[in-house]
């Protein structure tokens, strides 16, 4: 209970706590006061966190082992791993799973590529760079629903702007169905996902580029290395760890895919754009199979936790603990 024991858990990098070692701190009365203060400072945040984050989180796991249809609580029966067995044979689930993997890999390639090229290009400090940077970041403040609805109208084959735009630049042969075509819908969703998020990753890379000391670039220039050689041999190796981090973040965010699909296609046509989150939503809310839907979402949780654990171990442990 005493404060001296506490300090052993405290990370070493922290400066000594204010007033540690003051003798009167161990006095019982002050101890009680300190506890009340701690509860007042930390209690509310922790209370809401537990009640509205941990409870639903644990709830998802628990419900996934039941056959609850979602109405009255006495209809709950424990069914063990039945939902997961059924999931293993569910063709739609597996295609949703494959779509998530496609979107994840596609997002890594497109987002990282675009973000890297643009970060390096903006790092040349041409006139207007900060304007373009502001433009590229703009989609990150726009709700995904707005993105989905505006592009939903724009991609409409007969009335939207996309097909006339293709015809105007002489690529009319590509005009056609977009969200209604099972072969095109998923790549289109990937492009829209990239549209709305690459600016963030670009910014993370720019922040790293800024931190590279000017002397390194100058030294490379003195050694006669051209611009491209400097980028390849000096800059890129220094960006490696940030790039890994960016790719992991892209992967984690890609698994959250829900809004674009839900609003634009509801997973269609014929499940061609179904992802795990929309399939779980459909099972839980439309098909009222709450247990099965939760099992679907547990897969999403597990995948996210695997990636997040790698991320935390690699990039955050030293930082925070």
């Amino acid at each position, binding site marked *: 209970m005493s404060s001296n024991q506490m300090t052993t858990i405290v990370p070493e990098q922290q400066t000594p706590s204010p007033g540690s070692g003051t003798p009167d701190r161990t006095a019982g009365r002050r101890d009680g006061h300190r506890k009340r203060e701690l509860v007042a400072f930390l209690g509310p945040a922790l209370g809401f966190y537990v009640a509205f984050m941990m409870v639903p989180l644990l709830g998802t796991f628990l419900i996934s082992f039941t056959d609850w249809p979602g109405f009255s609580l006495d209809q709950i029966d424990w069914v063990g791993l039945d939902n997961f067995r059924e999931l293993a044979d569910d063709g739609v689930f597996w295609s949703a799973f494959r779509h998530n993997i496609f979107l994840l890999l596609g997002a890594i390639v497109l987002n990282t590529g675009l973000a890297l090229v643009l970060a390096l290009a903006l790092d040349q*400090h041409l006139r207007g760079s900060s304007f373009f940077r502001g433009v590229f970041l*703009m989609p990150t403040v726009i709700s*995904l629903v*707005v993105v989905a609805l505006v592009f939903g109208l724009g991609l409409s084959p007969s009335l939207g702007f996309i097909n006339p735009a293709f015809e105007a630049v002489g690529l009319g042969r590509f005009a056609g169905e977009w969200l209604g075509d099972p072969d095109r819908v998923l790549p289109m969703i990937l492009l829209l996902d990239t549209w709305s998020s690459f600016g963030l990753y670009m910014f993370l890379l720019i922040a790293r580029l800024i931190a590279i000391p000017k002397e390194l670039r100058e030294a490379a220039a003195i050694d006669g290395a051209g611009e491209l050689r400097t980028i390849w041999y000096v800059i890129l190796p220094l960006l490696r760890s940030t790039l890994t981090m960016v790719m992991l973040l892209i992967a*984690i965010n890609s698994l959250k895919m829900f809004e674009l699909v839900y609003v634009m296609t509801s997973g269609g046509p014929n499940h061609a754009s179904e992802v795990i989150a929309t399939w779980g939503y459909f099972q839980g*809310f439309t098909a009222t199979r709450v247990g099965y839907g939760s099992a679907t979402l547990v897969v999403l949780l597990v995948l*996210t936790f695997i990636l997040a654990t790698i991320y935390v171990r690699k990039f955050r442990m030293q930082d925070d603990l």
Partner: protein
Amino acid sequence: MTSDTVSATDIEARDSGHSSRRMSMATVGKALLLYPIFLGLSVIILFPLVWMFYSSFKSNADIFADVFALPNSLYLDNYKQVFQLAGLGSFFRSSMIVSLVSVVGLLALSTTAAYAFAFMEFRGKTFLFLLFLLGLMVPPQALIISGYGWMTVLGILDTYWALIFTYFGWSAFGILVLRDAFEAVPREISDSAKVDGAGHWARFWYIVLPLARPSTATVAIFLFMWIWNDFLYPLVYLQSEERYTLPLGIMFLNGQYAPEWGLQMAGLTVATAVPLTVYYFLQKQFVRGLMAGALKG
């Protein structure tokens, strides 16, 4: 963490230092290569938004006659209709209430908790910190089914409280950013106040909080944007149309007024106007929050 909190400002500083540089041959070459890329991408990003904006001032007939054409007069009927018939004002009001109450509450929750993590010693500190860290990784999409059940049990389904309390649960982002900011407060300052007899509350309110104002603003702006734009929780927790927030409301309009593009564009423009205005005026704070958010979560 400090490296990315200052970087947004650094980026600005670096640019202004270079912009006046004389154009060399190499610079011209670079410009010829890079400007087309910048401009092309800017068109891809801006066109859909600009199209949405100017189409909201066109009648349906005009939109379908030529999807690209600019409006030939300032046609305001879409806005009249979307507010009078379709209840956009009510969606807007709901969004404002939910966003503001949630942000104010979240600030109270996360500043106090961040203070506890930065200045108080207690058993299980590391464990609790890790517990909050865990919350940043949880995809909200995975919590909607059990969350719906939980709101039903609590009897707050289809109320603003269901949203507000749920957002109150997302204090981890603020705690992490603010803990770093609080720890950057020079120890001499907080310690000298302690010597003067100031308790935790006094130090929190009069010393730490004022000194960490920029970070607090960053957290507030970032959370406001995130909650304003959130679609998932309103979709699951709200049922009555009069309580819909804007993202849910505009999707509802899309279903209700499917053939009326002009009206939809007006609704979409209004929903986008608030975050874009905030972004325009407070870009630096938003970017700082965004980067911290990305790195944290």
